């Protein structure tokens, strides 16, 4: 699972039926480096049913297990936001905490 910052959203009219009524966010993967949460390389698109706002730090699960998240069984997704992160600690020190 990866930590990512929600940076945008995707709108698509023509799509696989399973995506009907589903919200899609653009998320920028982040990594913990030297005790800091820093931007990584990848931008991924994920389903979000938790109402993540842009700028939020979230937890994303990928692959076929993404479809085990609630409401995703019939959706052709491989990435789902499964948590809105309040705080991250690493090596005993806070790396991130929601304002």
């Amino acid at each position, binding site marked *: 699972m990866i930590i990512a*910052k*929600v*940076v*945008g*959203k*995707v*709108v*698509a*009219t*023509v*799509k*696989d039926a399973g*995506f009907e009524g589903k919200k*899609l966010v*653009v998320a*920028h993967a982040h*990594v913990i*480096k030297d005790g*800091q949460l*820093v*931007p*990584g*390389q990848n*931008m*991924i*698109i*994920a389903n979000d049913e938790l109402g993540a706002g*842009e*700028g939020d730090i979230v937890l994303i699960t990928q*692959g*076929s297990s*993404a*479809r085990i998240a609630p409401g995703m069984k019939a959706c*052709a*997704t*491989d*990435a789902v936001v499964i948590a809105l992160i309040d705080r991250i600690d690493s090596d005993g020190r806070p790396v991130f905490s929601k304002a």
Partner: protein
Amino acid sequence: MFMARVKGNVTAPAKHPTLRGRLLIIQPIDPIDRKETGIAQVAVDTLGAGMNSVVMATSDGRVVQEMLKAADDCPARLAVVAIVDAADASVAPATRAAGAK
């Protein structure tokens, strides 16, 4: 899922019987600045995405099997699941060098 631009298509008369949809060459792009990232790949398309259109692809094999109604003997792994109308970012992505300070 990732975003990509349709660059071409692949026709293969001799292919695995489950590969019923069209085969498109898709080039992964950054959803926000649309720059090319990563290497072009071949994806199954059942939505009719046109040349140069921006699509969203999934790499979950189970999904492709379901899209092609091919039970579990379909070897395909990448499928177009949406044709993107718009993608925007109100939060400008920070500099993207891996592990930038």
